[in-house]
């Protein structure tokens, strides 16, 4: 019975990956076909400020609105002026084929996320434990978190949709690796992992890692966009640098406290399992490095001269540390955290 469930879990995983691949193709189609990304910054900002006030205005409250502008944000003069750009496309307006592709892509991503969630739950039932005990399961959880984060970002302002292909690509690559070379059978975990702290620590750290993917990718796109090396035709399709920078910041400030909590929870667990709350185990060390890098990112955002370009580099560096911690430290370096389940 349990073996059967594990099998179903694997099937759902494969189905989810397949759906994501298909969604990626659709997104890629949209990205390739989209002429420019002109409405994006406006749509993004409007999603935050403009559309809300527009709704209030339309719903008959009828206040005298004079000179509504975006929040004063000295570092981003362009962000404030971007609202003056074209309004977001009205609901129900005729959609181009590319846009239809993109919308279909998003629907497929939702479907894929649903399938993946079922896969994760079934895995937990089959193994009769929290489904975060080895590399395959970490990757499934992290990519799931990244996808859900992306969907939440899209819900907040769908002007970023064509960029979905850049989010889905690393997700699909990771899931492929997780499902093939890193795959592990559903099985109980070793005694050190049999603790409710596994639920707290590994879940939060996986979600935080998944969250960090989105700002990392946004920052890479930001750097490409703001450097002149990108071909003009391509650059025009990427959302504005301001929108990307803002996206990176907004997701990072959610991910960073969660990551901090995850590290603290890990320290509390380590105190019970290994006899000390912090011992500079390789995984702990790189977690500390990543934490310091993201702290530096937040500081860079508040420092003149570092605000945009420098900060984006720091964010990319942070994602590099997170990915390095997931792969290199789990698979190559011998440490207490060597629970990858891959021998």
């Amino acid at each position: 019975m349990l073996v059967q469930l594990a099998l179903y879990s694997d099937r759902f995983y494969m189905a989810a990956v397949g759906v994501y691949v298909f969604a990626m193709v659709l997104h890629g189609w949209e990205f390739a076909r989209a002429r420019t990304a002109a409405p994006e910054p406006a749509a993004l900002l409007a999603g935050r400020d403009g559309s809300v006030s527009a709704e209030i205005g339309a719903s008959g409250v009828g206040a005298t609105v004079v000179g509504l502008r975006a929040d004063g944000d000295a570092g981003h003069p362009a962000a404030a002026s971007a609202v003056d750009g074209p309004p977001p496309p009205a609901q129900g307006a005729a959609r181009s084929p590319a846009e239809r592709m993109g919308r279909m892509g998003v629907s497929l991503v939702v479907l894929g996320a649903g399938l993946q969630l079922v896969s994760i739950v079934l895995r937990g039932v089959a193994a009769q434990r929290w489904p975060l005990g080895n590399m395959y399961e970490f990757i499934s959880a992290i990519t799931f978190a990244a996808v859900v984060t992306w969907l939440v970002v899209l819900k907040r302002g769908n002007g970023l949709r064509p960029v979905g292909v850049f989010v889905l690509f690393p997700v699909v690559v990771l899931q492929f690796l997780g499902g093939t070379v890193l795959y592990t059978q559903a099985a109980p975990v070793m005694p050190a992992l049999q603790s409710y702290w596994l639920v707290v620590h590994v879940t939060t750290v996986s979600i935080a890692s998944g969250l960090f993917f989105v700002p990392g990718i946004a920052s890479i796109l930001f750097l490409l966009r703001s450097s002149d090396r990108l071909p003009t035709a391509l650059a025009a399709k990427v959302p504005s640098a301001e929108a990307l920078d803002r996206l990176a910041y907004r997701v990072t400030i959610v991910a960073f406290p969660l990551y901090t909590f995850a590290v603290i929870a890990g320290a509390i667990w380590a105190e019970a399992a290994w006899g000390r709350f912090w011992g500079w185990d390789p995984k702990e060390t790189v977690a500390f490095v990543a934490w310091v890098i993201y702290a530096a990112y937040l500081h860079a955002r508040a420092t003149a001269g570092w605000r945009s370009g420098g900060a984006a580099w720091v964010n990319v560096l942070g994602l590099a540390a997170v990915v390095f911690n997931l792969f290199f430290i789990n698979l190559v370096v011998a440490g207490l955290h060597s629970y990858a389940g891959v021998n």
Partner: protein
Amino acid sequence: MVATETRPPEAPGRPAWTVLRNGWRALTSMRIALVLLFLLALGALPGALLPQRSLNQRLVDQYFADHPSLAPLLDRLGFFDVFAAPWFAAVYLLLMISLVGCVLPRALEHAKALRAAPVAVPRNLARLPHHAVATLDVPAEEATAAVRARLKGWRVAESPEGISAEKGYLREAGNLVFHLALIGLLVGFAGGKLFGYEGQVIVQADGGQFCNTGILGYDSFRAGLRVDGTGLDPFCIKVDDFTATYLPNGQAAAFAATVGYQSADDLAAGVQTWRPFPLAVNHPLRLDGERVYLQGHGYTPRFTVTFPDGQQRTGAIQWSPVDLTTMLSEGATKFQRPGVSDRKVSGLAITGLLAPTTSGGNVVTSVFPAPDDPQVAVDVLRGDLGLDDGRGQSIFSVDQGKVDSGALVKVARANLLPGESLRLDDGTVVRFDGVGQWVNLQVSHDPAELVMLVFAIALLGGLLCSLTVRRRRFWAKITPSGEGRAVVEIGGLARTDRAGYGEEFDRLRADLLARKDS
């Protein structure tokens, strides 16, 4: 850290003072703090990439063997002890000074800001990022009262020009708490390292006892700088048995030891009974100040040696696991022949491998970690064990120098099942009696632990406040416009990087202006 780059004009003064002052300003600037943060991250990396003495001496030795020219250079730079290296300490001390130099003035500033009244109403509210105006069908006094009532929870000041309000002081407070907690964590960590200790000891799981009376009782002991091993809290622990359960594929499913303990108070009161405790992984024994952990386990083969004169000696010394998945173990059980004065020729050592579940055959290896079908494959060595040389030697092996010099000679080799024995050329009989188990206990003492937890929670709380709370300002001008009507003009300004004042301002506008709009 101070984000502003503006500096007061240079005052003429002594150059030394100028250098000091500029140095201090540079150190406490955000730019330098950023650089120090990067250095800290960069400096910590070798701690993850290179083997560390504090974690695994064996891997460090391996690295020296693999990289004979590079390793000594790295060693001189402290790369095998990164977190004890002077340069690492230099970076984090500088960062801490930078932190203190930035946070303390900011805390004073914030304390002042908390007492100060909100900023006066700007002349032109229409120039603010958020602005609205409406004419209400109520007298000015009523409109003012409505604004006043709506601004509950805001810090409000009224002047003839209008009403000023500010909210979100918790942001800076959270920011300061975060940084102060970080300093607390660093100090607490250092304190724990100074006054804490960690000791490892192997105890036979057949009623073996250990008492925390001094460093000598331990197999290894890592003392804090202020710990000299006197004044440890005395307590005793007795390990009655140990059970490991395994899955069919050999993966461990659970480790549990049944122990009894006598706390310092029990010992002082002369209590003779043992308090039972189920010691397990993730379930340490927490005493007053010390924690006892189950950290490892292994097997102890029992050998009985019957010497030609009929005297018997039994040895049961822990052997060390070499393969954790099958628990194949190796070790050396050493005997001195009783009643023989020349110990240089009469030493006996039984060394080799122990398979808890043997593969059988001539070459013994282990196929399963549980002691289901144990067998040993041993060499018996006779001669000078070197135990009287005054040098320490591993209990897990014989002195290889003695073997090389011919002082210790192999006299027999055999594979033995429990109960089987081996007769040496001089008539000595070596019998393998069976296998016992040992556990590795760790005793940890860290006086700063609870403080660290409190600081960690404060850090997280401060971080959440500083990232979610928005500092924002709000102004209202109420002007009577005759016939019991009033023009209400409101304006808002978010003082922080994170946007999102818009929605709240919209609610304010809806509440204040829309109700009696004309």
